[in-house]
């Protein structure tokens, strides 16, 4: 029941917002919808905590330890993003970067996007998972080009084409998966239900599934932003409105990785080997290294942080590929803390670039003196994302590193190199932006404090104290993904 409310709220809110349009109270309705959605998410989490995994809507939806925390995370980050976007988008409107129609479109599509991601996470049907993923892409394509500048249109076109092509490969993979499943489970919708598939995964034809995994890896890997399929990501993140960058980076990449991991479990069950994991480790490690070195060359602040997202998704993919209880636990935790830290960074980056009316890092200076919350928020955000203790990212990266030393010692230096270079690059770029004197062109402005503070507090909390329910879910999910 909670599950249907969770899915229904954003859908309903998007319809309402499409009618409300650019009226003065539209952002408030957006926030209200997201708050209700988060409440439903908490309700669902509570339900799962008390009763364990459950099916709903005639086996069409399901919720277990793996997807419940991602669903709550999605509704939480979308809520804080809605709060952040209220002031941010109002200011963009005043600056004339977005028009009347644009605002109507922005609010309606924001909610459709949230709906698509939640559907992705909660559906039991692997085919519907694909459809929802495509819907999530389509709903954000025109948001990336919202400003209608030549670069924004170019970025959106790239996003549309590359993700469209990528996701088409995933559909082919899904067809192959269904082909194998049909032999065991019989025809009809039941053969694509994940709960059924995972029960019989050892009976699925291994040759077909290993072929399917290649397509699924390329398809969903494009959406995760893994190198060398990552070309769309920095463009889409840097050219779109900042709230959209925050949800793309913090949520969509997670959801795509979730889809990939779900498929990997089936393939592993069928083949009984570690091939799928090896492929994921390869992509992950390559992403970490390429992204870390690309960080050094960036001039645009949002572009730099999108490369950092590629790096972190690489770390999580690597962890899931490595497998084993510690690495999987680390991967799950990493998805959570990266999402919180990265969206918080994008909030501060959005404020910083509005204060300076530019995204060029060379022109952003003196943030701490200009606006302490933005300055310190960015500083602590970067420290968190670079893996400094006591933030949560340190915990997850430490776990993953420990597991690597144990299970794949030869890869440890590469992993360390990537993490080290990323840390150095981020610190070198961010330090001059936050420190120093306030430049003459910096405009003071009131900012949304709550989202940044909330996110950073959570990242810190998870770093020093892991709540019992989260620990329990992660342990159950580790069992599930074995």
């Amino acid at each position, binding site marked *: 029941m909670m599950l249907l409310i969770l899915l229904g709220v954003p859908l309903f809110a998007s319809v309402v917002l499409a009618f409300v349009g650019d009226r003065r109270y539209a952002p408030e309705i957006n926030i209200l919808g997201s708050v209700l959605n988060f409440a439903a998410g908490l309700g669902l989490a509570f339900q799962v905590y008390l009763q364990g995994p459950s099916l709903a809507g005639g086996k069409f939806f399901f919720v277990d330890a793996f997807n419940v925390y991602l669903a709550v995370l999605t509704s939480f980050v979308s809520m804080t993003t809605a709060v952040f976007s209220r002031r941010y988008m109002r200011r963009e409107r005043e600056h004339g970067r977005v028009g009347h129609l644009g605002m109507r479109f922005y609010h309606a599509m924001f909610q459709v996007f949230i709906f698509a991601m939640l559907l992705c996470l909660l559906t039991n*049907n692997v085919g519907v998972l694909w459809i929802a993923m495509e819907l999530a892409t*389509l709903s954000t394509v025109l948001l990336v080009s919202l400003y209608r500048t030549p670069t924004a*249109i170019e970025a959106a076109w790239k996003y*549309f084409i590359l993700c469209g092509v990528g996701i088409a490969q995933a559909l*082919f993979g899904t*067809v192959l998966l269904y082909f194998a499943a049909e032999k065991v489970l019989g025809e009809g919708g039941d053969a*694509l239900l994940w709960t059924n598939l995972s029960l019989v995964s050892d009976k699925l034809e291994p*040759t077909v599934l290993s072929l399917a995994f290649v397509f699924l890896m390329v398809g969903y890997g494009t959406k995760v932003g893994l190198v060398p399929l990552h070309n769309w990501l920095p463009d889409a993140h840097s050219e779109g409105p900042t709230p959209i960058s925050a949800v793309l980076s913090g949520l969509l990449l997670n959801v795509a990785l979730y889809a990939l991991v779900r498929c990997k479990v089936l393939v592993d069950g069928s083949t009984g080997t570690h091939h799928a994991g090896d492929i994921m480790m390869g992509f992950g490690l390559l992403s970490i290294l390429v992204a870390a070195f690309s960080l050094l060359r960036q001039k645009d602040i949002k572009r730099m942080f999108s490369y950092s997202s590629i790096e972190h998704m690489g770390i999580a993919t690597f962890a899931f590929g490595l497998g084993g209880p510690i690495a999987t636990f680390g991967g799950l935790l990493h998805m959570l803390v990266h999402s919180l830290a990265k969206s918080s960074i994008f909030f501060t980056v959005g404020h910083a670039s509005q204060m300076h009316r530019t995204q060029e890092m060379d022109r952003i200076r003196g943030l701490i003196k200009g606006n302490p919350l933005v300055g310190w928020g960015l500083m602590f955000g970067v420290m968190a994302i670079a893996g400094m203790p006591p933030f949560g990212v340190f915990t997850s990266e430490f776990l993953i590193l420990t597991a690597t030393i144990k299970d794949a010692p030869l890869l440890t230096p590469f992993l360390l190199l990537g993490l080290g270079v990323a840390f150095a690059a981020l610190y070198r770029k961010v330090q001059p932006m936050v420190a120093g004197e306030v430049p003459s062109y910096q405009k003071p402005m009131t900012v949304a404090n709550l989202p940044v503070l909330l996110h950073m507090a959570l990242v810190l909390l998870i770093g020093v104290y892991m709540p019992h329910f989260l620990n329990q879910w992660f342990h159950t999910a580790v069992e599930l993904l074995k």
Partner: protein
Amino acid sequence: MNLAVAAQIISFLAALVLLCAFGMLVQRRMYGLIHLFAWQGLFLSISTAVVGFVAGKHHLYISSLLTLSLKVFLLPYILHVLIQRLKIQKEVETVVNVPMTMLIGIALVIFSYHLTAPVREISTLVTRSVLAIALATVMIGLLMMITRRHAVTQIIGFLAMENGLFFAATSATYGMPLVVELGVALDVLIAAFIFGIFFFHIHTTFDSLDVEQMARLKEGD
């Protein structure tokens, strides 16, 4: 209709689908491309109906009708209108190195047959040999998107890929569950509206639909 006849009909239609894909690869005129795309959709739709008839799967008739209305009528119509509105009907695109593109296309077909060999071995369906052609259609669509520089051509390549995927779904498995097929069709429809909007945006911003001009976003040094 017995199975052997049906298998032959389906193979014949598959060959026509592949032929259309090759035709699109080298077609230089916009209208010609759209017509080829519509023909491909028609063959696909007939083949889906035949599979549905032979296998006794009535939901395939719905998929067949869906393909017919969406890919033979609606999408080509939308593309026609867009081309007229944007006044690019006379535009003839230069295709880089036709023989080379054809050769790569042929290589892709062979590669597809090689890749799907294990699947064909274990399949018992009359349509199993079609899977390789479906994959080849997907790959040729991809090749078309890479070699062409016009936004409209890229989209037609994208839609041809979608045709190939649909063909795979009906041929490898006698159709995906209906809810999945309806969802995929809905996604294609939304995509159609989005690229329609995009054409206008690109046209007004860059004054042409040549995607070569979109090269501003690069890694700075």
